[in-house]
């Protein structure tokens, strides 16, 4: 076999393997003993929420069962985002599926950092320059809308301390063609080389484009994050 043909076939095999590995894994077989672990994790998550409720702070709670991401202040729900889909995982390089399930259950993620960051500019008015031709002093200035001022990407990540991340995807970006999503998936995988993107564990949620944008613009800089086991008990 000619070397070129050999390497070509080898490359195809490798790319095919990479494609298969990018498909979502099948769910693990149900383990009756897991029900005990589920209740324990649910109890621990509620204890975390009770502890957060005693502090004067904002925090998010992801409840995949009812499809909601809720912003709380103490124990008061402020705003609900409707989650279309939710997945959790760990980088294959580190751990794989066994550990990925453990890291988001009943754990509080802290110190969020939005990527890309939201940038807003401040306008400066100097009182004796108001009536000059300087546009900064114009009193009839019309500000942009929130969408114009801070256009939200269709996919963004909130990195938390400890190597955890919350990936938010607008539903439009989630339904791209298989070929383009594979290419973009490979590109994003390589972006993982950047130290700023070095999440070990990640939860991925899909929202409508409007809600994903609103979440991006408003994500509080010190908010914590808790993901809870699906529960039939309403929050």
């Amino acid at each position, binding site marked *: 076999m000619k070397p070129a043909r050999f390497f070509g076939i080898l490359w195809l095999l490798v790319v095919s393997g990479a494609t298969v590995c990018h498909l979502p894994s099948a769910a693990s077989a149900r383990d009756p003993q897991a029900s005990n672990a589920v209740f324990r994790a649910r109890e621990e998550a509620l204890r975390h929420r009770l502890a957060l409720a005693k502090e004067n702070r904002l925090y998010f709670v992801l409840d995949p069962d009812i499809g909601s991401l809720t912003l709380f202040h103490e124990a008061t729900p402020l705003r609900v985002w409707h989650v279309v889909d939710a997945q959790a995982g760990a980088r294959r390089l580190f751990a794989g599926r066994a550990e990925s399930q453990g890291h988001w259950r009943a754990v509080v993620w802290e110190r969020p950092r939005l990527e890309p960051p939201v940038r807003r500019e401040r306008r400066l008015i100097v*009182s004796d320059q108001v009536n000059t031709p300087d546009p900064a002093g114009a*009193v009839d200035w019309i500000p942009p809308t929130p969408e114009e001022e801070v256009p939200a990407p269709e996919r963004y990540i909130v990195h938390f301390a400890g190597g955890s991340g919350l990936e938010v995807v607008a539903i439009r970006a989630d339904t791209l063609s298989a070929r383009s999503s594979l290419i973009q998936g490979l590109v994003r995988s390589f972006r993982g080389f950047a130290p700023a993107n070095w999440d070990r564990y990640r939860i991925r949620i899909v929202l409508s484009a409007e809600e994903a944008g609103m979440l991006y613009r408003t994500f509080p800089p010190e908010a914590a994050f808790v993901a809870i086991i699906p529960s039939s008990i309403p929050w």
Partner: protein
Amino acid sequence: MDAPQPPVRPATERWKLLVLGAAVAAVLIAPITAVLLSFDRQPMVVNGVDAAAETLGGAEDSLLADIAPLEIEVEKLQASLNAQATPGLYLVVDRANNRLWVRSRDSVVLEAVVSTGSHTILRESTGRKRTWTFDTPSGRYPILSERRHPVWVKPDWAFLEEGQPPPERVIDRIENGSLGEWALDLGDGYMIHGTLYERLLGRSITHGCIRVGRDDLRAVARAAEPGTPVFIF
């Protein structure tokens, strides 16, 4: 007779082979690296709960004995959490998206498009050289009072931002109608009030107050009362 010697490749040919080999290796390694850096994702829903619900029926007694007290504890914790939530109606303001909600723990009563602080800095160039930053503050604030047909006593900045000197007499600062039909005081000069410029609602244009359209403001004033908490984030 000497064995034939293999041909000696010139240096340029060796470099070409080296570069080609590196390129081939990179192309082969790239997908493998991509796979290793990718996430092994699984759905977060259902499995655990279904396992819990379905196996309870046929589960061993020992397993049931473990789960039952856990289930009770979970319900107690949930009830404790729910009891700490703010009772009755309260207001929520999203500054980044210029939205206001009137809601309770379980439902949203009203959603309104509003205007919040413009993030503008005003600097006084002469005299006391003061600086104002027009942000809507975040936090939890109780409504201190509700005023109908409020009168606005314009502060110094309202004149300075128009290039005018602030007047000495209070009567020269009074402006009727610009705050709309209602003003809900939050303290430190911040209010939820109406506006003459409803076409600008949805934009960050205020000096820190929260401007609401006429009809929504009436609904907010009906739903709220002194003591109603306002959460601003």
